[in-house]
Every structure is written in structure tokens, then in C-alpha cells.
């Protein structure tokens, strides 16, 4: 019997696990969260049961089906609070994980070698810096969403949602569902870009039926709650004494450069911003998977990566939304288990339809270079090390460096505890790094998570991976 190891228990990972079990494999799923579902189905913990939790979600019945199946099926073992922190490739791929409360010392160490590996590690928000984005009260849009769905926390009373992409709409909905007043959703893309991305073939949007319905639902929700949805605008500054008190919103040109004189200041205690997504690539990179020029894991039509026995599904292969993730997870899990390709024709077709969605999001909402016009000399770029925009560009100019490794080490941008997860892409773009070069990508992190030295020291001295038992 094949043993399939899935990393990530979001839509793609759970679907992959079930598909692999259906194809006859024994499956282990590792997820760093306290429960399955990933960011998409981020939900309340079992200690806080709610009868109508489905109201907060799309496709909740799909999640319940997957969750029940993974709980019931003896061949699927979902290990939560499992932080995969390194992958060794000196033999077959060995995944090292620590099991236990987040960041606690003394967690149980696990070294797993499986016959096949499926990465479904997802993505997190990319937030472009702007003056004041390091003030408390500024959140990534994903934070507002996760706290609303997973904790019933309203991040503020009067919230501004801004950035780019269709994800802003469900975030605003989650906020209103916690009782926050959403003052507006400010989308950086302007009508022509949206039209270019979405309108030439509107049936394509409809063909991805659920996604179309989901978006239409959000728009209806916002009309009901009188939430203004404004195009070609951005939060160009957050202000306040020690925390956010107001947000400055400006109109943007097609390049995302703010148009002088259009600034509007609104009183707000929460600013929730996302300009797209960054896939979580460190583990696939550690496993040796090729990353494409689009900065996603390269996969073929079977979700196979460049490494034998390693598959990838979901947002790490392209931002395609939940339908793509489910279809890709099914393909990856089924084939990783050694299943026959003829059994998954429909999923492979759905996967292709969804890929179109990803291209449209990029065409309509992709980051445009004019945003740097809202930066100031003292605007922090790297949040961890508090490296300012002026210092970053000044040092890169003084050293005549375009290579990320040197820029990081001379400025400390990206060297802090988040290991450039927040600022990496931004620093690359600002300094002209060429991420196709190994020295110039911010995605490579041999330690995929912090590990306490006592835990490292306690690892058994013999290379002795357990074969999926724990």
C-alpha cells in the first residue's frame, strides 16, 4: 500500500487526502493549524460550537463532507498543530515536523518519509507597504477575515478595506458579519483593467460557476449593507498616535500611482489591506521543486512537480480560488496514490477552467509599479527590522547592488524573524533583483519555521525517519 504524505489541510490538501485514500493509499496529512480547513475554511474551534457557522462560509457543506470523511476513514491520519520545519533530500525526501502547540518548546519531533508527497501549503496575503502600515490597527485583509471566521473578533468598529483583487469582497463581508462598519472597499484596479481581465469573455467567469456565484453573492451583500465599492483607489497612508485613527484614500492612475489632489481622509480604527497573494513556497523549494517565472510551483496537467513522487495543488500552483484547489487536490491525491488517470477526467477539466480564472485575476488586479509613488523616505518596508524605504534604496545605490542576498545583508531588510515573508517580494521589486537566480529569491528558507535549539539538539543522532508512524 502506498503511503501519501499531504502537507496542508486546506481545500486542496483535504481533497488530495480523500482522493488518495479512495485510490487505495494510506494518507498522512500535516497541518500547522489547530484544525483542518486551511485559511479558506478557517472556523471556530471545537470548544466554541455554533449552530449556524455555515453562514460564515462558502462551500461549508463540502468542508464538512471532507472533514467527516478524513475523521472516519482509518486510512487517513490528519495531524494538526504539525509544523513542518525542514525537508531533507539527501536520501528520499524526509519531512521533519514538530507536533504540539505553536512555537512551544519540547514538541514531539517527527521525521516522515512517504512514497509520494503532495504539497498544498496555500498562500498568504501580500501587502504593499505604505506610510503608517506598521501602526497597530492596520491588518492584512486575511487577518481580518481569519479573526472574524476563526475567533468572531471584529478588528475594528469602523474599517476600511483596500488593496486589489476579488478577495477584498469576502473580507468586507466577514467584517460586517462581526458588526464592523465597513466604510468602503477600495480596489486599486481601474475599470479598464477590470474590463480587460473580466469582460472579454464573461462566459468564462460564468463557466467557473461557483466562483461566479460566490462573487455575485458578495456584491449583493455589499449593496445590502451599503458598502461602497470604489475602483482605482488605494489607502496611501494610515495615520494615528500610536494606532490607526484615520486612513488617507487617493485615486490612482492606471499604473497605481496616486493622483495628487484626490486624497480623502476618513476616520477609521481598522485598515485591512491585501494586494494579492504570495504562495508559501519554502517547503516545495526545499524538496527541490522547480518554481516557474510566475513564482508558482511548476506542475504539469497531472499536478506533478519537477521532482519524482512530488505533487502540488492549490494556491502554490497559481491563485485560482477554491474550485481550482479542489480540482487540483483531487488530481494530485489520486495520482500520488498511484491511481489511474482515466478516473479523474472531470477534475482535470475543471482544473483547466479554473486556470483561466487565475490569469484573469492577474490581468485585472496584478500589482502595478506606480505604487512606489505613495512611499516616503521613512516608510518602513521590512516590518521586522524596521528598514525604511530611503535607507533601503540608498544602500542598494551605494553598493550598486541589484542582488537580493547582498541587499538583505547590508540593509537587514528581510533578515528578521518572518524571514522576508512579508517584505521579500517588495524588496526584490524595489531593488531590481532577478528572482530566477537562486541568490535573488526571497522564497528559499531551509528552515521553514523557527525551531528551538533545545528541540534541534534533542533530535535523535541517527538518521532514523519513522515510516509514517507516530
Amino acid at each position, binding site marked *: 500500500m502506498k503511503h501519501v504524505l499531504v502537507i496542508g489541510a486546506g481545500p486542496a490538501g483535504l481533497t488530495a487526502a480523500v482522493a488518495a485514500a479512495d485510490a487505495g493509499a494510506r494518507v498522512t496529512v500535516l497541518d500547522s493549524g489547530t484544525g483542518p480547513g486551511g485559511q479558506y475554511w478557517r472556523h471556530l474551534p471545537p470548544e466554541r460550537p455554533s449552530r449556524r457557522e455555515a453562514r460564515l462560509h462558502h462551500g461549508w457543506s463540502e468542508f464538512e463532507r471532507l472533514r467527516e470523511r478524513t475523521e472516519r476513514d482509518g486510512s487517513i491520519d490528519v495531524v494538526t498543530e504539525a509544523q513542518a520545519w525542514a525537508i531533507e533530500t539527501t536520501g528520499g525526501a524526509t519531512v521533519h515536523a514538530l507536533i504540539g502547540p505553536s512555537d512551544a518548546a519540547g514538541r514531539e519531533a517527527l521525521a516522515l518519509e512517504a512514497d509520494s508527497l503532495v504539497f498544498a501549503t496555500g498562500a498568504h496575503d501580500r501587502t504593499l507597504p505604505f506610510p503608517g502600515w506598521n501602526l497597530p490597527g492596520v491588518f492584512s485583509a486575511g*487577518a481580518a477575515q481569519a479573526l472574524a471566521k476563526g475567533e468572531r473578533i471584529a478588528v475594528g468598529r469602523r474599517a476600511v478595506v483596500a488593496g486589489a483583487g476579488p478577495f477584498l469582497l469576502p473580507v468586507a463581508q466577514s467584517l460586517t458579519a462581526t458588526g464592523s462598519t465597513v466604510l468602503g472597499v477600495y480596489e486599486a484596479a481601474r475599470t479598464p483593467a477590470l474590463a480587460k481581465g473580466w469582460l472579454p469573455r464573461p462566459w468564462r467567469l460564468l463557466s467557473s460557476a461557483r466562483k461566479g456565484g460566490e462573487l455575485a453573492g458578495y456584491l449583493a451583500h455589499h449593496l445590502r449593507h451599503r458598502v461602497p465599492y470604489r475602483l482605482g483607489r488605494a489607502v496611501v497612508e494610515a495615520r494615528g498616535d500610536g494606532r490607526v485613527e484615520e486612513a488617507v484614500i487617493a485615486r490612482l492612475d492606471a499604473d497605481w500611482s496616486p493622483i495628487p489632489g484626490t486624497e480623502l481622509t476618513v476616520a477609521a480604527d481598522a485598515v485591512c489591506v491585501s494586494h494579492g497573494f504570495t504562495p508559501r513556497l519554502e517547503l516545495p523549494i526545499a524538496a527541490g521543486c522547480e518554481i516557474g517565472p510566475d513564482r508558482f510551483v511548476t506542475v504539469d496537467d497531472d499536478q506533478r512537480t519537477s521532482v519524482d513522487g512530488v505533487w502540488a495543488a492549490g494556491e502554490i500552483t497559481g491563485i485560482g480560488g477554491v474550485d481550482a484547489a479542489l480540482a487540483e487536490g483531487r488530481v494530485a491525491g489520486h495520482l500520488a496514490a498511484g491511481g489511474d488517470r482515466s478516473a479523474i477526467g472531470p477534475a482535470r477539466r475543471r482544473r483547466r477552467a479554473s486556470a483561466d480564472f487565475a490569469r484573469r485575476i492577474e490581468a485585472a488586479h496584478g500589482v502595478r509599479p506606480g505604487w512606489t509613488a505613495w512611499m516616503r523616505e521613512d516608510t518602513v518596508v521590512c516590518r521586522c527590522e524596521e528598514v525604511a524605504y530611503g535607507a533601503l534604496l540608498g544602500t542598494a545605490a551605494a553598493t550598486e547592488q541589484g542582488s537580493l542576498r547582498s541587499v538583505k545583508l547590508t540593509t537587514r531588510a528581510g533578515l528578521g524573524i518572518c524571514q522576508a515573508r512579508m517584505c521579500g517580494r517588495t524588496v526584490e521589486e524595489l531593488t531590481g533583483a532577478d528572482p530566477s537566480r537562486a541568490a535573488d529569491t526571497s522564497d528559499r528558507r531551509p528552515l521553514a519555521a523557527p525551531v528551538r535549539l533545545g528541540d534541534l539538539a534533542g533530535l535523535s543522532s541517527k538518521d532514523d525517519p519513522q515510516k509514517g508512524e507516530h
Partner: protein
Amino acid sequence: MSSIVPFESDPIRPAEPRCLTISVDGERIEGLRGQSIAGILLAQGRTAWRTTVAGRERGVFCGIGVCFDCVGTVNGESDVRLCLRRARDGDTVETQDDSEEDTR
């Protein structure tokens, strides 16, 4: 100000939550079972608890364990992401201040 949706009026009809108590910098704070430590702080209206080297306040930014802005010391172990860490009854949390020399 951040807040928690009162369970009595939450349209998703939650069961009555059970409480727990943690201490934050010596102060006893009540939270709900199942909450993250960051969730407990945010429910109290606290949006910031860490101080950076430059003396700036930070709290939750990404909310999903990626940015490490929200880290604190839990039961003597530093740099714990409070947005990920589920509170346990009796947890002792100390906020981290990188702006002070020799006090952490």
C-alpha cells in the same frame, strides 16, 4: 477598537462559551476556551502588545502566523506567535519589548 462578537447576539448561534484565565504581564485576563492568546487580547480591545527596537507598538498584522508581529513570551518561552497559540487556562504571557536594553 477591536472587540469580540457577543455570543448572545451572534447570528451564527454559538453555544455558551466556557471561560479560562491567563495572565498577561501579571494581570489576570479572562478569555474563552478555544481562543488564541491574540484573540483574547483583541477581545479586550488591545490591538498592540509588542514593542519594536525603534519603540513602536505592534500587535496582530497577518493573523495567520506569517508575519511574527504578534509574538510574545508564553510560559517563559519567547517569540511565540500569539495569533496561532491556543490559550490554555493558567498560561502566563509576557509582552516583549525590544526597545529596552537588558530587561527582557
